[in-house]
């Protein structure tokens, strides 16, 4: 320790350094009231924007006064004093003491106002969001003209008993068959277990008198002929599938019964398919 102290004393001229306190470079915001009691140390002549400018403010020492940049015991500290910062005066923006309501009641009133403003902005925002989302989602649904084409109304008075009428529905043939009581009884009596696609006649019709099916053969999509075939129903001329009067596959290559679309009897004599 002794040696180090002695050595450092010999180099005292070189090692001499001071940490100077200089005014901070922060300019006060706005017009701060400068109190005369606070002493300003010094104002640097030039603004220090670069490292070189900062370094040039270091204390000079040694031969030909080179700047002490670093070394043993050399302080390169460059401290900005912050005690001379002037805090702006916010009194103008503060409520006068007589206006301020520090009671719980007054506190609640202030908070209620704040939250009311928030809710008042939130409700229209929520409404707007809902409207936009509804608009985009509803644009994905079918338009009115498409929906109008998706349904077909059929007047059942015009179809006599025992007759099969073909309509065009959604680009496909639609068979509407007015079945006789004889056909109804015959189809109801068929043993379901003996069928390729087991389905009872009552599962395929809402009103036993009327059979509504799509006229597309389940084999390869031909249009079957009505009142033909071995089972008194439909016969597909393409590959010889026989359907009965309930549209069920009975013979031939087709795997499934003729498809029954969704339909309902709106009035006694008005059928709506789709």
């Amino acid at each position, binding site marked *: 320790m002794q040696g180090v102290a002695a050595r450092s004393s010999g180099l005292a001229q070189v090692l001499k350094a001071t940490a100077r306190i200089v005014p901070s470079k922060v300019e006060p915001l706005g017009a701060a009231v400068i109190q005369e009691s606070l002493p300003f140390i010094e104002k640097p002549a030039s603004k220090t924007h670069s490292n070189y400018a900062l370094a040039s403010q270091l204390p000079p020492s040694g031969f030909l006064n080179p700047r002490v940049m670093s070394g043993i015991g050399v302080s390169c500290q460059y401290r900005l004093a912050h005690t001379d910062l002037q805090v702006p005066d916010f009194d103008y923006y503060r409520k006068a003491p007589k206006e301020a309501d520090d009671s719980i009641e007054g506190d609640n009133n202030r908070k209620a106002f704040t939250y009311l403003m928030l809710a008042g902005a939130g*409700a229209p925002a929520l409404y707007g969001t809902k409207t936009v989302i509804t608009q985009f989602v509803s644009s994905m649904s079918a338009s009115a003209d498409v929906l109008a084409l998706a349904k077909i109304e059929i007047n059942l008075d015009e179809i006599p008993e025992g007759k099969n009428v073909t309509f065009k529905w959604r680009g496909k043939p639609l068979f509407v068959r007015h079945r006789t009581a004889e056909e109804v009884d015959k189809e109801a009596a068929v043993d379901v277990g003996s069928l390729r696609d087991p389905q009872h006649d009552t599962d395929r019709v809402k009103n036993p008198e009327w059979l509504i099916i799509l006229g597309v053969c389940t084999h390869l999509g031909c249009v079957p002929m009505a009142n033909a075939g071995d089972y008194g129903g439909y016969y597909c001329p393409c590959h010889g599938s026989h359907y009965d009067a309930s549209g069920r596959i009975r013979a031939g290559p087709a795997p499934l019964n003729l498809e029954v679309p969704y339909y309902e009897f709106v009035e006694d004599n008005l059928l709506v398919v789709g």
Partner: protein
Amino acid sequence: MSLVSVVYKSVFRRSSTFALAIVAGAFGFERIFDPTCDAVFAYINRGKLYDDCKATFAAQGGAEEE
């Protein structure tokens, strides 16, 4: 205890009731805002809308069909 204070304590203080209040407010806002906008639209376009000339169309249409 004032009304504002009651509302603050019962509604705004809890996030759940606050969100509920916003949803209810959005409902109420829609019920007022939509008819108001429709009324403004109808007022600006009065005389041009279908409802305004429905009677005229019905009279003409009936005449043409017969």
